[in-house]
């Protein structure tokens, strides 16, 4: 099995997200960076598939040089090959641009190493949430695509995937190669081990420079809503709190 997982470096914010004065970007001064949670799950799923069926997991990201951190993290949790498409412009590419860059990279990777049986994306990125890069890539490569995936079964004939809907699951079946948009909850991603972290430092990262064209979508402004102030009221300590809690639940109509 040859799997490609595309991931994005995103800030790991607290409950309040500050917007920079240019109103185009989030202020990341206090923030660490992580991999979008849906994509962490995609990577975990891919790692589990190759553990069971054999194969490779190529992890690809388009982003600043610092996104190497996310590739090394991927190396510590099951990724086997790593590709960085550098974007050192200082701002995110729009989805069209990103998709183009990934499509070009995939064609090179497939020409050299064979077709990917599965290409996985996160359902959407944690920061921009555009929901479209995976679909654009699938369309360009003329491969089937399903988003919102919460389960994957592999059989001789191809893939059976489950997609969560309000009332239950939708189940789809299709032959490979295919593109999937994975959702958080499909699995519980592993943490890196100390050995894994140390080994990841030796992981080789392939750099593929992008020749993709800029897209047609321009971010004009980020709007920060007024902060909602919530007040915490302490209802009591230990057993003394029971009465006030019952009263409150009653008031809220829960009881």
């Amino acid at each position: 099995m040859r799997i490609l997982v595309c991931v994005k470096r995103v800030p790991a914010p607290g409950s309040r997200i500050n917007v920079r004065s240019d109103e185009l970007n989030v202020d990341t001064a206090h923030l660490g960076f992580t991999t979008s949670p849906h994509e962490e799950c995609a990577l975990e799923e891919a790692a589990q598939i190759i553990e069971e069926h054999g194969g490779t997991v190529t992890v690809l990201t388009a982003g600043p040089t610092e996104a190497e951190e996310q590739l090394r993290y991927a190396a510590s949790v099951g990724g086997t090959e790593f590709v960085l498409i550098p974007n050192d412009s200082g701002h995110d590419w729009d989805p069209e641009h990103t998709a183009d860059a990934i499509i070009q990279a995939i064609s090179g990777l497939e020409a050299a190493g064979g077709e990917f049986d599965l290409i996985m994306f996160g359902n959407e990125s944690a920061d921009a949430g555009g929901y479209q890069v995976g679909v654009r890539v699938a369309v360009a490569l003329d491969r089937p695509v399903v988003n919102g995936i919460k389960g994957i079964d592999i059989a001789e004939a191809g893939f059976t995937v489950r997609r969560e809907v309000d009332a239950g699951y939708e189940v789809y079946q299709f032959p490979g190669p295919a593109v999937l948009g994975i959702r958080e909850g499909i699995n519980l991603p592993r943490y890196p081990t100390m050995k894994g972290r140390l080994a990841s430092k030796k992981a080789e990262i392939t750099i593929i420079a992008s020749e993709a064209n800029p897209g047609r979508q321009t971010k004009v402004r980020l709007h920060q809503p007024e902060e909602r102030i919530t007040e915490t009221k302490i209802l009591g300590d230990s057993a003394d709190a029971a009465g006030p809690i019952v009263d409150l639940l009653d008031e809220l109509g829960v009881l």
Partner: protein
Amino acid sequence: MSDFPTKASCVVIGAGIVGNCVVGHLSDMGWKEIVLLDKGPLPNPGGSTGHASNFIFPADHSKEIVDLTLESQKQYEELGLQTTCGGIEVARTEERMEEFKRRMTSATCWGIPSELLTPAEVKERVPFVSEDVILGGFYTPSVSAVDSLETGTQMRKRAQDAGNLQVFANTEVTDIETAPGPKKPTIRAVVTDKGRIECDSVVIACGVWSPRLAEMAGATIPLTPAVHQMADVGPFDVLVETQQELAYPIVRDMDTFCYERQSAGSMEVGSYAHRPILHRVDDIPSNEEAALSPTEMPFTADDFDQQMEEAIELMEFLGDGEIKYAINGLLSLTPDANPVIGPTVEVENLWSAAAVWVKEGPGVGLLVAEWMTHGYPHLTDPHGADITRFYPQQRNVTHIEARAEEHFNKTYGIVHPREQWASRRDITTGPVKARTDALAAFYFEAGGWERPHWYESNLDLVATYEISERQHEWDARWWTPISDAEHLHLRDNVGIVDLSAFQIFEVSGSGVLDYIEHMVVNKCDVKVGGSIYTPVLNSSGGFRSDLTILRLDDDRFRVITGAFDGGRDEYWFRHNLPEDASVQFENRTNAVCTLGVWGPNAIPLLSELTESDLTQDAFPYGTCQKILIAGIPTEMFRVSYVGDAGFEIYTPMQHGLALWDAISDAGENFNLRPVGAAVYGTSGRIEKGYRLMGAELENEYTPVEAGLARPKVKAANFIGKDAYLAAREEDPCAQLCVLTVEDHTCADGYPRFPMGAGNEPVLSASGDRIVDAKGRVSRVTTAGNAPSVGKYLLMAYLPIDLCEVGTELKVMYQNETYPVTVAATGTNLALFDPDNARMKA
């Protein structure tokens, strides 16, 4: 909010371990209307307490830190929030094994049971340690882990239940208002986003945020937020199977500056080995902005990789553990790695309780509450932690960060008692530095000042006096045989000492006599030109300082104190100024240069430079006169801390260099040599049995025990008088003594030399720890060679029944014992020229 108070006696800001313990103890001591504020939620408002590893290794070289730590363990235990699991420090190097001998010495001194372990013995206690990478261990069974958050909650609750405390979480302090006071601004109110509270005093216990809060009031709390990385790794079957939070001793891997602490099924791995990562207070996110908490900053994995590798070397299974939680945890670093506690210099009734570890938190809470309640703490002498110890040039961010960068990696380091700072040197220098540089002075830092400790230019004297080198590198570190040679040269000829670092205050005005009498023990109403050497006590009768006072005029006194004590003493003298402005205080340190000239040739040499009569008859010992030296106006004070005839000579700073040159030029005919502070502060002093603040003199001991009580007590009232009178009535249970080392030979067959760093116990002849009736341990307070006596001397307080000259005892150094004999006790501890004939020659 209607129930938000508008008035309080005291507002404590910060509900971490320190703030909570302060309010608990203030309430216990009878304080009412206390308010505790924190900008974060409770019980974990997001400060350093919330991510602390919460373990306590009680053995330390510092008495003050040990006192605070043992008191904290006692309080955690009383609350039932301590788990005693034992702890092992492991060594990978021979240097560390040597350090463990010093650890054993300290542990013996403080009565903390400990033992040295072989690698196999370490493995017996911690089976998953790779014994092949270690050389041994230092095991302390009383190492514990505590629940600092619950302790804080209980402390708070205690004060709330007593009706003395109101607590407000999620309350941001936006300003601390001050009002003009008679001497300096004083606390008026704390302004928050929920309202304004008028109050009499404020305690800042805000950990890494403390500098910001202090700044609101116009004060400084010198510390910087710094990163301590840690990761929670697991789970591991070997730990899960124990079904305990802590089944194994906590391991400190001292040579890699790491620790491994079981936390139920996981292991916490923490490090002080990574590069120093300092932050500014404004770089810390708010509770809302932080992904975890404000002080759990994003983990920078690259900085931790080497520590991981080393941790796996020691405990191989760690490699397979998942890193579930890893942070760049923030803690507070001060310029000298000690806490910053006590009243701030700048604002009356504003207190600092910051840069405190969980292991000292409850003890510091008690200490601060005592200090606020009684005017001075009883728990221990807070000498090293007193925030007023820092001079202005040490309170700024440049200095704080430079020193924090330097000492961060020494958190688990091997630090020599005489170790000198490398950063921020040459910031404060006297007027003769160009000359002392030319004489190849080796400088020690004294309260920020560069002070020559010895002169390489005197190397020839080592052969002249046949001074031996020290064989062990540790004994010889930051030491030179030149010092003993300088000492003997001074005794035979004459030496000049650069005393520019002296701290010089002048107090004057119509009320000055009453004021100065009130400040100190001994009578100050002496003739103009007279001098007073005197203890300065706190209200409980323990030492706050000792210093020399000159009466310059009817209404003007000069107060001279040491470079290490100037900050504390200035605070104390200013704090006690009368409110009616009848006394003016002036710090003249930067205006006055002091040079010392002593030795049998001192009077003849100086007489060449003046027409004044300098003989004892015309210029008696202990008096001060205005004298022209080579046409330079000076004030000469006939006194000696080194035991020979001569003077401290004060001159305006701008004349200092010319004065040095005049004396040096004339000195050629008198065999004058420059002499360093090693002679002035140690060898000369110890031969005369003179006491030193911070060594022999401290809060726990009285002038009676120090042998500094005069036959009579002056009529005037003074701070600590009642306690002093009571101490004079009692039979003292301990007395300061001088001991001689009878045999220096160590087990390896060569001589060793105790340091006198305060942690070397004096033991009975049978090798038992000696404790007096008040529970105070006998330990070496000063150690030094006495070249003119031909002995190596120690000073120590001994229980009264051992204070007989000739009593044979032992001293522990490097975990070995050496025979010592009591050589002097009482008021006169001089073994050299005990009748003081030379000083009065």
